[in-house]
């Protein structure tokens, strides 16, 4: 699935606004055909980083290569095959959806069919509506349409599904997955962890302008510290018995419930060990540590370690 040639390489990127360091020494490489997520708290520098990649901003230092081209020096060439969806960008209030999408299609050498694109985004019925009369979700989908209509090799999508209802989000997700299946490389800036988990092949977690994690969503989620199982035993079980079960780290008791936290196949080993000593379990509720848990843990850890220097 992963091609050897990186589509985008960022090395030691630094961008300051006055004396505020927005991006501080970011290095990453994005493979062709993958969906690469950039997650991080508000103000972490995500948008600034992708604006440098798309050529909208000039980095203060560091180098960026997009399919072997420099976003600054070869900006004209890059614009031909990079589709950008900006976080805060509106259309002229009286432009009609169809006009805007056809206009953007005319800018590119090999565009998608505007009608088909609007259909797949579920907004064909508003093709003759003025932009100012659209709902937030419709505006967002039009914005996505403008980023994709040029049939880009690289799509940079900033806050893709903000303001969309759950159904619309799922539709857009499957559209992005179909784009990847066609070989499009996608950079996705998001602060929705479920979106990152569902869509992204790899993720960079950015905090305070620095990449603090770069891995698959599963690997980052694993850092949340494994899974949690809550259950009711048929008869009292002491802590020593529980601690002896492989993978168990912590035990909490509340009323008749016992909650154990740990790693590995927690539910399996728990049930097997307890069954062997004649204890049945009921009301089992198991939750695997997810990306959101890891996100909160990692960004909180990082907040405590600010000033300790560059993290790796």
């Amino acid at each position, binding site marked *: 699935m992963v091609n050897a040639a990186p589509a985008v390489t960022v090395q030691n990127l630094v961008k300051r606004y006055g004396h505020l360091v927005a991006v501080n020494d970011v290095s990453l490489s994005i493979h062709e055909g993958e969906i690469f997520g950039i997650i991080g708290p508000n103000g972490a520098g995500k948008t600034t980083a992708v604006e440098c990649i*798309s*050529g*909208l901003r000039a980095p203060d230092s560091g180098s960026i290569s997009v399919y072997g081209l420099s976003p600054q020096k070869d900006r*004209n060439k890059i*614009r*031909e095959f*990079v*589709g*950008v969806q*900006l976080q*805060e*960008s*509106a*259309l*002229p209030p*009286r*432009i009609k959806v169809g*006009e*805007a999408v*056809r*206009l*953007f299609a*005319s*800018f*590119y*050498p090999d565009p998608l069919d505007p009608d088909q694109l609007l259909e797949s985004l579920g907004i064909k019925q508003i093709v003759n509506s003025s932009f100012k009369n659209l709902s937030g979700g419709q505006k967002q989908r039009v914005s996505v349409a*403008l980023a994709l209509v*040029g049939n880009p090799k690289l799509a940079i999508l900033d806050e893709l599904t903000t303001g969309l209802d759950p159904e619309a989000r799922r539709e857009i997700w499957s559209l992005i997955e179909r784009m990847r299946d066609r070989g499009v490389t996608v950079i996705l800036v998001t602060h929705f962890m479920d979106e990152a988990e569902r869509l992204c092949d790899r993720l960079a977690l950015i905090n305070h302008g620095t990449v603090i994690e770069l891995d698959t969503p599963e690997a980052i989620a694993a850092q949340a510290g494994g899974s949690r199982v809550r259950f009711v035993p048929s008869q009292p079980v002491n802590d020593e018995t529980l601690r002896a079960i492989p993978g168990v780290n912590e035990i909490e008791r509340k009323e008749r419930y016992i909650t154990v936290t740990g790693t590995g196949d927690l539910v399996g080993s728990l049930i097997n060990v307890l069954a062997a000593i004649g204890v049945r379990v009921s009301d089992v509720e198991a939750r695997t540590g997810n990306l959101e848990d890891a996100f909160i843990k990692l960004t909180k850890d990082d907040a405590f370690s600010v000033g300790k220097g560059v993290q790796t």
Partner: protein
Amino acid sequence: MTGYRPEWISHRSRVQFAELLKVQSKLALREPYALLGGLALPAILLAVFGFIGQAQPGNVGSTGLTIIDLWTPTILVLSFIFISVSLPNTLVRDREIGWLRRVSTTPLHPSRLLAAQLIIDLILAAAAVLIVILEGALVFGASLHVQILPFAVSLLLSIVELFALGLVLVALVPTQAVAQPVAGVVTFGLMFLSGLWVNPAQVGDPLRTIMYYSPSGAAVRAVLDSAFNGGPSYAGLLTMAVYTVIFGFVAIRYFRWE
């Protein structure tokens, strides 16, 4: 420099620009600031002066010109002023909402958007000239005996100079909310200096000199002279040329796409 341009690029840029002109024209019709100010208002003003002229026929003072003759140049320049000050209405807004920035991420440079807007406004200005001259001549019997070349040069220079002033506003005004009052004040100033309310020939110095060498006053005088005095004064044309260079420089120097 004769740059090498493959055929498909030039063909594509023509297709891009045609599509852009189409959309921008539709927007200009849906947000008709320039259309109303540039075409409707001059047509109405001309009718007002036309009826005054019919009530007071004959020469004004000892000029040998009728009221309609005298006011036609002023009304033409007013039309250019209204079109010009409508530029920030759309362009400042398009910048403020991030549309120009958005366009700058596509293969189309946003300067083409500006060019399309200027072409549309140029067409409007040409239409205003036709409407005002035809209305003046056919309905109110204004004199049509002008020397075409100096007249056309004066009109064209007036348009270029005033459009450059409009672009200065686009460059300097930060937001749409500021654009409206600024455009209002500038319009009022230009209308006054053009001689709409007081005729510069009838006021003393230094106001007369200020009006003659103001952006709109110089334009009116050049058009008037080229229509009825055999040709515009070189000083008048030079005044407009200097303004055009200054406005053009400021507009280019301070223009922002985002």
